[in-house]
């Protein structure tokens, strides 16, 4: 798949045409909504309390709508004027600001209860102009992000890293700015459904909730390790064990798998 961040810088790539296409595409809307729901879950906000959130790379406000549904107030920043114009036309509740995250967030300290960012961070690493020192931009961004969060707040980024080096670079820059936390990958075994989150924390030790779907890795091996002849095979277990393992593998890839029953892995009866 071609990567849009290689084609042009974000303020030029997301022109009026591209912004309109982006906001009308039902598949993009669905993915954005799901990712934002998941990011919100990872933020671990206090329940039934409306919070003030920052949406970095808010675009046309698709992710902002999810935040509104959960009763939060949000402020969004984006670098693409065309995207923000669409957000205004759609009358989203949050306020939007035209700003470049690589130049530092234009907020005073300790304001936000959390930050979400849906598929935006990879644009920060795009070096369109040799004058932009990547490392400097990352440092400026993460330190200004750290400053505008209140103590104990989290920032969750969903993004598409180009390779492991990029992910490591982002993690080390965040660490340098004072964040703890790190990557969290949903559906790690699937190329298509794989989603990378960078979960950054400003203080304290907390746990990460595991996605309900990704969690479904039931272990069925162990109890009845018998092979076809009814004897125990130390490597593969019984025929049923082998099938169950394979089904689990497919479930982890988010593929359609038939439900398990007592007939799973049995031979068909002969007439």
């Amino acid at each position, binding site marked *: 798949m071609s990567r849009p961040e290689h084609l042009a810088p974000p303020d030029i790539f997301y022109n009026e045409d591209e912004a309109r296409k982006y906001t009308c595409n039902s598949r993009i809307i669905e993915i954005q909504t799901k990712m934002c729901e998941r990011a919100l879950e990872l933020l671990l906000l206090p329940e039934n*309390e*409306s919070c*003030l959130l920052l949406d970095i790379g808010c675009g046309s406000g698709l992710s902002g709508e999810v935040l509104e549904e959960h*009763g939060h*107030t949000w*402020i969004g*920043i984006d*670098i693409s*004027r065309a995207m*923000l*114009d669409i957000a*205004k036309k759609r009358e989203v*509740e949050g*306020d*939007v*600001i*035209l*700003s*470049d995250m690589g*130049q*530092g*967030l*234009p*907020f*005073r300290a*300790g*304001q936000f209860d959390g930050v979400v960012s849906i598929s935006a961070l990879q644009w920060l690493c795009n070096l369109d102009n040799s*004058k932009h020192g990547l490392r400097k931009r990352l440092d*400026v961004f993460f330190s*200004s992000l750290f400053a*505008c969060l*209140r103590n104990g707040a989290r920032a969750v980024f969903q993004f598409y890293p180009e390779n492991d080096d990029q992910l490591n670079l982002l993690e080390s820059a965040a660490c340098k700015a004072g964040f703890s936390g790190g990557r969290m990958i949903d559906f790690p075994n699937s190329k298509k459904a794989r989603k990378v989150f960078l979960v950054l924390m400003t203080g304290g030790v907390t746990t990460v909730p595991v996605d309900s779907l990704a969690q479904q890795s039931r272990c069925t091996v162990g109890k009845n390790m018998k092979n076809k002849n009814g004897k125990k095979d130390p490597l593969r277990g019984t025929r049923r064990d082998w099938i169950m393992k394979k089904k689990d593998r497919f479930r982890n890839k988010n593929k359609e798998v038939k439900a398990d029953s007592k007939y799973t892995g049995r031979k068909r009866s002969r007439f």
Partner: protein
Amino acid sequence: MKLLTHNMLSSKSLKGVVVGYPLKIEAYDVKVTEVEFNPEFIAKVIPKIDYSVLIRAAEYLGHVGKLPGHVPENVEKNTDFLKEVHHALLEVEVVKGDLVCPESGRRFPITDGIPNMLLNEDEV
């Protein structure tokens, strides 16, 4: 741009600017839209905002209403006060105007309600 956003915006990313707060508003076009009132959120946000900055901004835009000069005690139960703050923070919106950095005098234009905080290469 709502006054809640104005209350947080700072121009400290500019080279040579230390505080960059509060940004001065110069408004040419202001509109009022109705937003759902959420007393818990307003009560939670009041300790975080800079109240004097809000008062000054609301005064300038002519929407100060019955806002008192200081935050009264027992904010949570004072629904009238919360409603006033709600109106000033979330319902008053600057559609066209400028934000001016108090230190360098750099202007950030607001068009169609979107403040443009982009900086030039040499200003970072």
